[in-house]
């Protein structure tokens, strides 16, 4: 049986090539994602916590007093007691940009557990030490002047030493900057005589839990005491793996179509062969097992190749997604999970996809061996259409309900898609009925033939288009919400304020206290104001106020003062008319002790604060979220500000740049999604190639006849290209429609954001699929054109 399967596959290499590639891609996706995830986790697992018990504040605004260190040394069972002052410190590379990802830029007080490999421990505010991986990749040497950013301020310091450390941040590609104890406390701790945490190791013979209990008895209620086991180990960011697996699932789902289509077409082509086997005594089960054995073999080959490709993929994932530029992660080539998953997925998908065609093959009656001509073509589509309609309607109803409750979308969207996939043969019949006339007008009888060929087997056309449809529907379903959100953000950004230049900090970083002053001194700057979020307690709720420069704010925010005046803002507060209505405030009411309302205003839609106060009312240490600047020559002043700040954690943008960046901030996400979906679309394209190849083989005689009555070689290609474009566009249009509906409902469900259909992109998708159609016909058309006429006419592929 297996030998027969091997022979059959070798004899039909062309037909099995594309399904193998499709399954291989899916398996590579799955195993690559799992191997990469496992490798990252393994490298993080090597970083063990270097303490037994940690004392830290419940809320970050509370200090851990320094004198507690001495007390803890006296606790029974305590070994080493190590105070920690930990925070964010960004390292600026020699090229002026940040070293490592901003989210993983750590700063810490230098102590003995940082093992020096070069130089000495940092002393005083002017010296630091960095971890060896950072020093290595940034090209720093002991004695270099290095710039670091802490609390939004740049400082130039001398690199006193380089150390090695097992730290989760460093393992993931971050940086660790060590300062001497006093400097670190000044930078990171709440007060200069406190720390951010104290780590203790247990003395031999004492369990972590016992030590924790002893420590708990000593420390105040403001502090929490946890054992190392209780503190969650830094888990690898499994999101990437999860996202990859979702898209791998989509890719594999698409592969199912390709594999099923191949086996269906193969079974039709070999109906006589199977009938002959039946006639000489093979039973149905034999034929079924024979076809499934072929599927199994194909699955095994695809799995092995896919797994190897997956290893390569995992190795390049790091670079591809620039997930981390940390120390090289040793790649795990074999894992129990990845191997099991790859085998299960690769073989499972193939065998499941081949099962229905295999059963159909087994149902061929022995008498068919004697018949000539085509086996009877497919059954009526009625049952299929009814099923599809019911599923699609149920899905559509659930999606429509999704406007009320978002959860329904997750149920409805796949149902809708599934229903539409079941209905694709019907669509193909409709579409081709519509297309016959125009295509005949445009391309003459070549158009007629192309349309008729796609109609000939609606199931096959449907399955082929369905494979493309899946990828494209997801493309549309993610594009519509992102385009809507982007458009809305852009609109709001445009109306929020009238600053010519704005300065913001990158994620995880702050705008330092010196920033506003530095900007004000740049030539050409006409006015500056910080926007510092200030929360003002009003009864049980909070008022989101913007702490601003009271003298200049009126030039930045177009506020319509309804009553009162902004002149006295330095000694009071201005509130929005909405808040005033809610609280029934009038000018003169005291919102909080010593904070009378001086004005009530209507602000532009995009301005997201409820009130204005003087920036001086912000709590100490609270930094501006944005600095707004007025300048006549925005472009040159922007450059001047950039130069004056010289801080890679700050972003300086002109108004146009800012609006554009807001309107495109999700584009990166979108592009990553496209990249992931491209694999599914690629498999969909392969499915078109596959169908075109096989149907060309089936129609050898027809092509021969056409050539005999005067069809040129190139025109053979025209017909096939038209045919394949029709199939591709059918998939694109059905997929995009479904995707847009789902996406639009998802947006509508969020409320407040108008749905924006990105026509440009949708059009581009259609064009791209049409191009895919043309490309997909390339190879089959070449083959078809090369068929010698006589051989074609005399062949028995009727």
């Amino acid at each position, binding site marked *: 049986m297996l030998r027969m399967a091997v022979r059959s596959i070798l004899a039909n290499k062309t037909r099995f090539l594309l399904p193998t590639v499709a399954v291989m891609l899916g398996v590579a996706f799955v195993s690559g994602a799992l191997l990469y995830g496992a490798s990252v986790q393994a490298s993080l697992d090597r970083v063990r916590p270097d303490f037994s018990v940690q004392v830290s504040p419940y809320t970050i605004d509370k200090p851990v007093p320094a004198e507690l260190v001495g007390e803890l040394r006296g606790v029974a069972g305590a070994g080493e007691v190590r105070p920690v002052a930990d925070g964010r410190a960004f390292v600026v590379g020699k090229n002026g940009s940040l070293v490592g990802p901003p989210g993983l830029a750590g700063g810490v007080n230098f102590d003995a557990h940082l093992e020096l490999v070069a130089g000495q421990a940092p002393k005083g505010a002017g010296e630091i030490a960095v971890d060896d991986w950072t020093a290595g990749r940034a090209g720093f040497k002991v004695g270099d002047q290095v710039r670091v950013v802490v609390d939004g301020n740049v400082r130039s310091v001398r690199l006193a030493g380089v150390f090695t450390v097992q730290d989760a941040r460093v393992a993931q590609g971050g940086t660790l900057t060590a300062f001497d104890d006093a400097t670190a406390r000044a930078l990171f701790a709440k007060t200069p005589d406190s720390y951010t945490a104290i780590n203790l190791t247990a003395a031999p013979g004492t369990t972590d839990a016992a030590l924790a209990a002893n420590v708990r008895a000593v420390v105040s209620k403001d502090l929490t005491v946890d054992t190392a086991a209780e503190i969650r180990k830094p888990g690898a960011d499994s999101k990437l793996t999860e996202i990859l697996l979702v898209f791998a699932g989509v890719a594999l789902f698409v592969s199912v179509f390709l594999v099923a289509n191949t086996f269906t077409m193969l079974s039709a082509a070999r109906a006589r062969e199977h009938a002959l086997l039946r006639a000489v005594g093979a039973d149905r089960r034999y034929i079924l097992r024979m076809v499934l054995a072929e599927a199994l073999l194909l699955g095994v080959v695809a799995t092995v190749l896919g797994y190897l490709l997956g290893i390569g993929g995992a190795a390049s994932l790091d670079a591809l997604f620039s997930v981390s530029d940390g120390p090289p992660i040793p790649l795990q080539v074999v894992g129990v999970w990845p191997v099991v998953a790859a085998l299960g997925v690769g073989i499972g998908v193939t065998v499941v996809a081949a099962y229905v065609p295999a059963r159909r093959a087994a149902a061929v009656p022995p008498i068919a061996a004697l018949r000539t001509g085509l086996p009877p073509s497919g059954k009526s589509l009625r049952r299929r259409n009814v099923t599809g309609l019911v599923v699609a309607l149920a899905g559509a109803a659930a999606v429509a309900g999704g406007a009320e409750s978002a959860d329904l979308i997750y149920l409805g969207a796949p149902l809708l898609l599934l229903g539409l996939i079941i209905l694709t043969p019907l669509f193909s019949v409709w579409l081709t009925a519509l297309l016959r006339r125009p295509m005949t007008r445009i391309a003459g*009888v070549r158009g*007629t033939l192309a349309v*008729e060929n796609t109609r000939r087997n609606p199931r096959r056309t449907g399955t082929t288009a369905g494979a493309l449809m899946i990828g494209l529907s997801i493309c549309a379903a993610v594009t519509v919400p992102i385009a809507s959100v982007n458009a809305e953000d852009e609109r709001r950004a445009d109306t929020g304020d009238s600053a010519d230049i704005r300065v913001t900090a990158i994620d995880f970083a702050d705008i330092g206290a010196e920033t506003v002053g530095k900007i004000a001194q740049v030539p050409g700057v006409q006015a500056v104001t910080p926007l510092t979020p200030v929360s003002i307690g009003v009864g049980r709720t909070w008022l989101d106020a913007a702490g601003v420069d009271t003298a200049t704010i009126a030039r930045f925010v177009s506020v319509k003062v309804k009553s009162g005046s902004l002149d006295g803002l330095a000694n009071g507060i201005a509130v929005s008319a909405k808040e005033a209505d809610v609280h029934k405030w009038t000018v003169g009411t005291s919102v909080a002790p010593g904070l009378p309302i001086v004005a009530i205003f209507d602000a532009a839609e995009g301005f997201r604060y409820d009130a204005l106060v003087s920036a001086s009312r912000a709590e100490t240490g609270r930094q501006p979220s944005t600095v707004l600047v007025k300048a006549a020559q925005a472009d040159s002043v922007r450059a001047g500000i950039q130069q004056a700040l010289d801080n890679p954690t700050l972003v300086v943008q002109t108004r146009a740049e800012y609006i554009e960046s807001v309107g495109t901030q999700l584009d990166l996400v979108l592009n990553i999604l496209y990249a992931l979906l491209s694999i599914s679309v690629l498999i969909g394209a392969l499915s078109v190639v596959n169908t075109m190849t096989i149907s060309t083989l089936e129609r050898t005689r027809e092509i021969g*006849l*056409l050539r005999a009555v*005067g069809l040129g*070689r190139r025109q053979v290609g025209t017909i096939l290209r038209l045919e394949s474009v029709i199939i591709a566009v059918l998939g694109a249009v059905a997929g995009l429609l479904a995707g847009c509906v789902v996406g639009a409902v998802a947006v509508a469900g969020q409320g407040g954001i108008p749905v924006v259909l990105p026509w440009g992109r949708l059009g581009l998708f259609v064009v791209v699929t049409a191009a895919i159609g043309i490309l997909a016909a390339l190879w089959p058309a070449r083959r078809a054109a090369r068929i010698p006429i*006589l051989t074609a*006419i005399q062949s028995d592929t*009727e």
Partner: protein
Amino acid sequence: MDQRTVAVADQLGKVYGTGQAAVTALAGVSAQFRQREFTAVMGPSGSGKSTFVHCLAGLDTPTSGKALIGGTDLGSLTEAGLTRLRREKIGFVFQSFNLLPTLTAWENIVLPLSLADKRPDSAWTKQVVDAVGLADRLTHRPSELSGGQQQRVACARALISRPDIVVADEPTGNLDSRTGAQILGLLQMCARHWGQTIVMVTHDPIAAGYADRVLFLADGRLVDEMAHPTPDRVLDRMRRFDAQAVR
């Protein structure tokens, strides 16, 4: 009567394979085909009769000699030229599978014109359709037509472009004798009344009896020619082949 020569076979030869394995299918056959002439090509299996007409009609390329249609040497044509020649100068009728299943009878008939992006000449088209007697079946698909009707559609298609020559390869091979006779009568009428040149490969003496002359091929050579054949005379001649083969 002007009997212009429309097709010439000049020492046509075809050898398959090379060296020891070479098989000679045609060993230099010359013949001329004049206007209005209905020629049957006969011979035992393996005599090269099909290869002969295939080479003559540009479906196959001869390894020696040349074929001319309307004065054009087929060997001098490019692929595109040959395609055009097939479309405009030659009409084909095969033994089976003559029609595209996806097109209606009408679309099949005008296919050579459609491929050349030409509009059918309505008077001529009507004449052809009336002659094959399918005026009421034009919107049917081949699967809805009988074997005889399909073959008549094929004949109409071969005639529609008013080719220099119609090449029919066993056109009645798959038909019963009554429907076969209709096809042969149709071809005969085309030659006699419309001046159509027809070359037909057949192994059936009765079919050959419809022709104006018969060419006999054996072992890749032209061995005999018979004018005004009747089925009996053809059968006699064929018997002699068999006798030779036995001896």
